[in-house]
């Protein structure tokens, strides 16, 4: 009984280390291949469109409502010690430093990460990836590299959008609904928020972009077990990438504060 239990722990630990190793190898190969000609811009642009442009709507919704609720809650809390004028900077700092990159990361992981894992997984189980190999095309270069580049480039851009609509949402609630003086709201925001706050968030989102695309590509690429396996790869990608985003966010924050 105990032995079987220990064995199963051992097996899952072994699987974990194996997967981590495989992913590291894939990442290394991908990094080398990014700088290996020829560069296929068409594939990169296609993925950028998919990760970036097609995520705009969901990111705008997330950002604006987050900014709005932050203003509402911030106002309620700050009013207790008469600091309503600080709602603006509260919203802007929270968005720029944490919520912008993290929420963008999580939303785009749910949208694009799962889709990437599904697409690559389907290509694996229908032998399309094998077909690439037989045609002397490196599947990591053809499939993984454009997706990682797209993630690393588009996540920060989407974060900028999230930050912006969040701040606008906060302004609308703070000024229009809660009656904070607009001059105070904007002035205080400009006083408190520095470019470095925004940059912190963008650095993070670059890392999140790498995490999401890498995890999704890895799980899709090594899918086994037919349609069920494809579903598993998609779920696993979203869960793994989301957890990794939150954990790495804490680690990066503790270094960048």
């Amino acid at each position: 009984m105990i032995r079987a239990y220990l064995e199963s722990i051992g097996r899952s630990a072994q699987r974990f280390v194996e997967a981590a190793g495989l992913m590291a190898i894939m990442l290394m190969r991908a990094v080398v291949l990014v700088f290996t000609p020829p560069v296929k811009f068409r594939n990169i642009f296609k993925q950028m469109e998919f990760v970036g442009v097609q995520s705009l709507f969901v990111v705008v919704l997330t950002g604006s409502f987050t900014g709005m609720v932050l203003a509402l809650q911030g106002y309620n809390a700050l009013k207790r010690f008469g600091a309503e004028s600080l709602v603006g900077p509260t919203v802007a700092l929270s968005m720029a430093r944490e919520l912008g990159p993290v929420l963008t990361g999580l939303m785009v992981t749910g949208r694009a990460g799962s889709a990437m894992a599904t697409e690559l997984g389907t290509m694996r189980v229908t032998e399309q990836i094998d077909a690439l190999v037989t045609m002397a095309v490196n599947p990591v270069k053809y499939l993984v590299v454009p997706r990682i580049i797209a993630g690393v480039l588009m996540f920060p851009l989407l974060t900028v959008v999230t930050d912006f609509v969040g701040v606008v949402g906060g302004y609308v609630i703070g000024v229009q609904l809660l009656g904070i003086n607009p001059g105070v709201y904007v002035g205080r925001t400009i006083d408190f928020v520095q470019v470095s706050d925004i940059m912190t968030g963008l650095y993070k989102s670059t890392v999140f972009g790498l995490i999401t695309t890498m995890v999704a590509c890895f799980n899709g690429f090594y899918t086994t077990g037919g349609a069920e396996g494809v579903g598993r790869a998609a779920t696993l990608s979203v869960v793994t990438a989301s957890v990794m985003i939150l954990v790495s966010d804490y680690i990066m924050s503790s270094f960048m504060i």
Partner: protein
Amino acid sequence: MPPSALIKIIGLKKSFGPKKVLDGVDLDVEKGKITVIIGRSGEGKSFLLKHIIGLLRPDEGQIFLEGQEITAMREREFNEVRKRFGMLFQGAALFDSMSVGGNVGFPLKEHTDLSDEDIMKVVGEKLRRVGLVGVEKMTTAELSGGMKKRVGLARAIVMDPEIVLFDEPTTGLDPIMSDSIADLVLDTQRELKTTYVLITHDIPFTYKIADKIAMLHEGKIIEQGSVEEMKKNPNPVLRQFLEGRAEGPIRVY
């Protein structure tokens, strides 16, 4: 070894976990001929094919292509060798993100400097050769099973490879379609004297096209020869398989 052996497989072994799939395969593939490897489903025929084109690496044994040991090659070297091959997968493995024309033209786009216009010309010509006209713009989802195989074959031969590998080209097709695929195999092969290696368990299909038949059973090639030789061969395992009987030395699970 006959002088015309293009591919020579020696003692090829491969296991997946405790399961021995290939247990010492020895086989010569002659240049310009059609070699058909037959055997039961799950006997590792596909694995054998995947070793030839380097999708899998053996645990033991070697594969030589014109005397060069390809099984010892690094991935980058092997990629050069792969350009001499074409492969048709069981499910055709067409890229569903591309049109039919995009699929057939894909190797040209990746490996040549041809303009899009020239590529489409070659694509049209290859598609005609497999009996399809005006399908370039169709999506792969619109194709029937037989058409998918044809498009897959057009893609496999678009670079005029020296060797084409076929993974179960008639599985899932009706007998008439199977026969037309057999004609297609013969037509395309005769024209350029390409070397074809097929795996199948379709016996009428095999009899129609094979120059040489090899039977894979329990991880080894147990018998090989021409169609006539194989028809006369008294080996009970081979007889049972060729005649498609449930009773005999091969156990049915």
